[in-house]
């Protein structure tokens, strides 16, 4: 094998895919780290967000409206799932996993009823259409926008977590929820805010991704598998871990499809297994 197949185009593809994966997986890791829930409905929230973003942006002919609609709607959906269902099995890992898996299937079916089995693509606003010339290649503006957005989301989440009081509460909750509550934190409210934030990131990812990966009935499971890999590689609850994991998975996936198309998944899960063998908590995870 040579690296001849790898060029700037693939690197950019890998980076932009990583940016999208990061947006989705950061929500997943927040929920995983704080609420200790492997939310298998996270992919379905992504797909729902995408469909909602698609519908709203088509109806209003505004991409921005689609983005905000998907963020808000999916945050509310996350709230509903957390307060209406997950709350009753909190602390029972197996039940949580099965419940969120069930929720994923139900959401899938609801989406199938509403939007059918067709493939949709969210319309990109005129401003972001076309390509720009960088480093000798023409590259779609929209994908560069996704890369920029991924960086913005990373910085915003980093500032939220590390520079605000709410962020300190979330970190304290990740560290030791019992002690956080005992020293006066209303941890239920922090949990709730975090699950809404995590869900809204899935919703945002849906609309953003819906414009270049397209939306179709099984898209949610693909995203879920990638998110799981990212969180396992990066370590649950770690934002930097999610970013590094997303970069690794995004690049490996893109490169893998070029170099070893027949082993596309192995290229991701092979290194993941290797990392886990040496760092069972992930690259940036901490033992609890």
């Amino acid at each position, binding site marked *: 094998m040579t690296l001849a197949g790898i060029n700037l185009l693939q690197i950019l593809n890998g980076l932009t895919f990583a940016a999208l994966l990061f947006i989705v997986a950061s929500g997943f890791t927040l929920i995983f780290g704080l609420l200790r829930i492997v939310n298998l409905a996270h992919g379905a929230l992504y797909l729902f967000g995408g469909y909602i973003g698609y519908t709203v942006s088509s109806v209003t002919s505004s991409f921005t409206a689609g983005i905000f609609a998907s963020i808000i709607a999916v945050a509310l959906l996350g709230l509903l799932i957390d307060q209406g269902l997950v709350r009753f099995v909190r602390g029972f890992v197996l039940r949580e996993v099965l419940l969120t898996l069930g929720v994923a299937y139900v959401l899938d079916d609801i989406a199938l009823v509403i939007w059918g089995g067709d493939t949709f693509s969210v319309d990109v606003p005129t401003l972001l259409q076309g390509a720009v010339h960088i480093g000798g290649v023409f590259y779609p503006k929209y994908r560069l926008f996704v890369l920029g957005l991924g960086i913005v989301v990373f910085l915003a989440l980093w500032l939220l977590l590390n520079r605000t009081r709410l962020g300190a509460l979330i970190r304290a909750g990740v560290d030791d929820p019992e002690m956080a*509550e*005992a*020293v*006066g934190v209303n941890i*239920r409210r922090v949990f709730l805010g975090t699950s809404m934030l995590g869900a809204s990131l899935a919703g945002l990812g849906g609309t953003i991704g819906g414009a270049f990966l397209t939306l179709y009935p099984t898209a949610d499971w693909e995203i879920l598998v990638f998110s799981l890999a990212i969180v396992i590689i990066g370590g649950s609850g770690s934002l930097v871990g999610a970013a590094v994991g997303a970069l690794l998975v995004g690049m490996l996936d893109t490169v893998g499809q070029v170099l070893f198309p027949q082993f596309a998944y192995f290229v991701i899960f092979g290194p993941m297994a290797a990392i886990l063998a040496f760092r069972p908590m992930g690259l940036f995870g901490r033992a609890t």
Partner: protein
Amino acid sequence: MLEVRNLHSFYGDAHVLHGVSLEVNSGEVVALLGRNGMGKTTLIRSIMRLAQPQVREGSLLWNGEELMHLTPHEVASRRIGLVPQGRRLFPSLSVVEHLTMLKPASAKHGWTVSRVLDMFPRLAERKNHRGNQLSGGERQMLAVGRALMIDPELILMDEPSEGLAPVMVQHLETIIADLGRTGLAILLVEQNLYSALAVANRFYVLETGKVVHAATAAEIKENQASLLRFLGVH
């Protein structure tokens, strides 16, 4: 004031507290003594209303209000602070974040970040260190500082001297005595009898989930032998 009445606490089927009753009046430093595994931490956790242990019987009156149906943060919001056994700092929070994470209480006694840092100058020097980068003594000071930030009327301290060097234990005694003089009530769990004698007004001895002895500081001055006997010192 805190009135614990006939408290029965369980971990699953294990019956750990068998009808504990005690009280802490405002402004008092009360020591709770007892050997390992006698139920001291269980009592503290019961008062804080943590998920474990389960309290199946008894009452916890705090200034006339029943705490039994509150959640831990509601107990904290009633101005009961906790310094847990083993410190339990948050590894990913800096020193100053431990103090600022809560909305500043409408301070009657005026516990602010700067006042806590004045009280513990060593923490002020290590403001941006993380909890797990501190020495044992500094960790304990931070645990006390964190508890002060809810502006408590009562602090529950679970073995604060555990694992500290003698000079640190002495420093801690001074701190506890100083806090007591500000009008703060303290329920102090101790295994170190002499540490407790240095600061407490009253004493309870807990043995296998029961209060087996209660005495005031004056009574103990008269007759230390009885207390020592209850503690099994000889």
